[in-house]
């Protein structure tokens, strides 16, 4: 049990670290699309690590199954949500960083 606790805390701490990195990247990156990449660090790896860490804390009963369900559903819903956000931004006419730079150069000439 002691070893499981150590593995679990390592996973949880790693998950928290990645979650924090994602939040930091959200502020440091330059535009909408690049910020979405930072958010997807929190979306994917942080969730997986934290849920795996929590699974090791259960006594492998029905709660483990519930956590696995949460993991499975998040693996489906979070990329779907990111895709919906990116697609609507793109169709709404938001330009990526290189495109905006080209446009600004055109304006200065």
């Amino acid at each position, binding site marked *: 049990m002691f070893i499981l606790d150590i593995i679990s805390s390592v996973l949880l701490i790693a998950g928290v670290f990645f979650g924090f990195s994602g939040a930091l990247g959200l502020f440091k990156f330059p535009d909408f699309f690049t910020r*979405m*990449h930072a958010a997807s660090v929190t979306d*994917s790896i942080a969730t997986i690590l934290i849920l795996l860490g929590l699974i090791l804390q259960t006594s492998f009963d029905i709660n483990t199954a519930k956590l696995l369900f949460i993991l499975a559903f998040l*693996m489906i819903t979070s*990329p779907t949500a990111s895709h919906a956000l*990116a*697609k609507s931004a793109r169709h709404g006419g938001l330009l990526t960083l290189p495109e905006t730079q080209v446009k600004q150069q055109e304006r200065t000439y």
Partner: protein
Amino acid sequence: MPSIEKKSRRNYIHIAIWALILSIFWLLLSGIYNPLLLSFGAVSIFVVLLVLRRIEDVDKKRQHLGTGLRLIRYIPWLIGQILKSSIHVTKLIWGSPSKVSPTLAKINISNIPPNKRVLYANSITLTPGTLCVDLKGDELTVHALQKSSITELEEGYMENKITGIWGKSE
């Protein structure tokens, strides 16, 4: 052409499999097993099956229930990929956020069978550093944090993994 009798028998088997899956799902979610709640579960499963039957009359193409064994081969590999690219993006965040070279590219996916394209697009979005923006016909629009991820996708590492497990489209 299959006779009507054969068809209806296949229907019953299909419904029975769904009933079994839904019951297991409900039992795992509930955790409290007294007669009142169990009867609620039975009623809700019945309602779902009723809806399922009616929806499948509308939906001509039946979705086959896979065993998910192939997915078990795919998921660990995908988690490995997610870990690798997460570390890469995290390095960028802590190191030098100005080093990013955001790129938008179109990727041809005609090799991938149509019912696995969503899986491919979702896998791309799930790995940090690449983001699927649009899926139209045989083309996938992908936004990447760095140009190198686009070349990696074009080399078809992930594509080969999917076509290796589920087969190529004809």
